[in-house]
């Protein structure tokens, strides 16, 4: 295949060029990422095509569309997507684009509609995506060629769900979703099995942007090293709470005082990475009071991991699932090379008590909101990184991927054995070590997808 055919317009062709962006020499103790990965506009356009266009992306929750004809909209990077449950109860995902003039068909985030009518010329589609009306069709003097064309909504290449999480892919050439998720399924299960009737995103929209590249969030999603600097004001507030001051309605955890707690990272095929650590106080989790029921339902190991461990999991490329201050699912959506939109969902058990839900909410709001006490400090650091990275002529290689490399081991360890997971690599140590090694696989997968895209090869042979 001619490589130029696979490239977005206006982008130069240099199949060897990709090698310049990740300096991956484990035997020399070197792993570096080139700053252009965060700032280069051409590279960003390739990312949209070769990474976001050719792998699974999180779209939303099945619980958003429980009934026939329910729908929600979203994006894969800049591509608008419509997800529907048809009258046949099947979930489908489409490009949210009218076939007539290309207008975004549905601009409501969530709702119920048997028919989606484009407000421009009233072309209409049912909840299975079938075109049910071309306005004044008979009077339209349409030629045979037009009549023989397909006027239905164009489906995404693939759509599938796992444990209530709906994923889609623009390209049909992707592995089965469960194979893509692999052993990260354990962490999805940990979260999504906590409610006896399932889990749901708690109503209320938490949407914000930061003026930085999406990968800054990907990295931060598993970064413990920054906690004692970036979040020092939050840690001080927490120590004050432990002394009985401040807002006593939220938790008083003491991460900074427990820098020795056992911490481990795992990486999995397809670019996923996980950071796990001991939870200093299992009783603090809203689920703790129902631990016995949970053990009976999902088994002791899984149940105990919901309270005795914290984790931050990155589902490549841009989804983060965490169990720490709250249960949070976040998506970092790239809009441009230096603008990212964040959607955060606070997850709660369907049908849980008001008190339990209130506790989850207060913890989530305390830390994760764009109006919280911690997340804004992260977002502002991403912006500061973007500003620093953009300086031409500065040091091209970033040195933020080496912590933990001496202790990086192939395969699993005690913790992955507990959960029968088979990681590519693991690292085990203390929280204070602030490992960075779980970022290697996401970047290797990023490079692999970019390379195969550039060369016009299949993403998943």
């Amino acid at each position, binding site marked *: 295949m001619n490589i130029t055919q696979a490239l977005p317009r206006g982008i130069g062709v240099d199949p060897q060029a990709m090698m310049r962006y990740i300096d991956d020499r484990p035997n020399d103790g070197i792993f570096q990422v080139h700053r252009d990965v965060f700032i280069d506009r051409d590279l960003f356009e390739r990312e949209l095509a070769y990474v976001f266009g050719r792998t699974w992306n999180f779209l939303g929750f099945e619980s*958003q569309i429980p009934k026939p004809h329910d729908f*929600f909209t979203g994006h894969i990077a800049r591509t608008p997507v419509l997800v529907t449950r048809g009258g046949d109860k099947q979930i489908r995902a489409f490009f949210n684009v009218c076939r007539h003039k290309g207008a975004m068909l549905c601009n*409501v*985030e*969530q*709702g119920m509609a048997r028919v989606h009518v484009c407000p421009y010329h009233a072309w209409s589609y049912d909840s299975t995506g079938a075109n049910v009306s071309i306005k004044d069709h008979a009077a339209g003097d349409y030629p045979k060629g037009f009549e023989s064309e397909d006027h239905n909504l164009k489906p995404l290449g693939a759509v599938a769900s796992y444990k209530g999480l709906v994923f889609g892919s623009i390209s049909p050439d992707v592995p089965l979703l469960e194979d893509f998720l692999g052993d990260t399924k354990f962490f999805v299960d940990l979260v999504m099995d906590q409610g006896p009737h399932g889990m749901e995103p*708690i*109503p*209320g*929209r*938490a*949407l*914000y*942007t*930061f*003026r930085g590249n999406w990968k800054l969030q990907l990295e931060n999603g598993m970064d413990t090293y920054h906690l004692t600097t*970036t979040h*020092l*004001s*939050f840690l*001080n*507030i927490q120590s*004050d709470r432990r002394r009985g*001051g*401040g*807002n*006593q*309605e939220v938790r008083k955890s003491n991460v900074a005082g427990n820098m020795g707690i056992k911490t481990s990272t795992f990486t999995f095929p397809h670019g996923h990475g996980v950071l796990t650590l001991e939870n200093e106080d299992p009783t603090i989790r809203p689920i703790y009071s129902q631990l016995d029921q949970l053990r009976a339902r999902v088994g002791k190991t899984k149940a105990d991991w919901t309270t005795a461990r914290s984790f931050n999991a990155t589902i490549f490329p841009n989804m983060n699932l965490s169990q720490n201050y709250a249960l949070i699912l976040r998506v970092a959506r790239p809009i441009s090379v230096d603008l990212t939109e964040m959607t955060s969902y*606070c997850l709660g058990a369907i049908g849980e008590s*008001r*008190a339990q*839900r*209130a506790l989850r*909410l*207060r913890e*989530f*709001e305390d830390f994760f*909101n*764009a*109006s919280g*006490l911690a*997340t*804004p*400090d992260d*977002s*502002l*650091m991403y*912006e*500061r990184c973007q500003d620093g990275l953009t300086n031409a002529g500065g040091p091209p290689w970033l040195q933020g991927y080496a912590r933990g490399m001496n202790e990086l081991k192939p395969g699993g360890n005690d913790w992955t054995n507990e959960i029968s997971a088979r990681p590519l690599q693991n690292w085990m140590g203390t929280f204070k070590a602030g490992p960075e090694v779980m970022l290697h696989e996401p970047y290797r997968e990023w490079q692999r997808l970019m390379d195969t895209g550039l060369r016009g090869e299949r993403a998943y042979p």
Partner: protein
Amino acid sequence: MPAVKKKSRPTPPAARSAQSRGAPSLPARKSSPEALRDLLDAGRDLIESEAMYLDERRWDDWLALYTEKCEYWVPTWRMDGTLTTSHDEELSHIYYSNRAGLAERVSRLTSRWSPASSPVPRTCHIVANIRFIGAPSQDRMQLRSSWVTHALYIRQRQTYAFFGSAEYELASVSGKWLIARKKVVLKNDYIPSMIDVNCL
């Protein structure tokens, strides 16, 4: 600090017409136009003081406007475009049932250890359309306002405007009006990086 210009404000039409009819100057009754005007003035003074204290970063003065058991709530909007109605069942931008939560905000804003708050954005609060909600009493009143806060995020060299409406429940405590409850409706909830109490 600038003196509170209670007297310079135009007299509400209702009160003016009462005066023009030559109504006798009686001690203000609970529902007399004069009493209502005085209450509204007191409420407006409090709301404008809050705006000014935040703009001038007089954090302790700002906190002192709230009762210890105050409720401070900034609800989020649902995906369907309606405002959330239950802070215990739906997500809020901020929810506190006590002033200690607000005090924590202040400690963060002034700590120099928060990258998002160093330096604290420069703000200009504009409040208007201050009206009663329901009938006030001598020691309790509810008010609504419309507000705009312009903010310069200094390091980012970005200027944003946040806007919305707010509901206040004011309580008279030892002869001083304080905020017992504030609900802020943030209408532009597509948030650029961050927002804190000083920008609401």
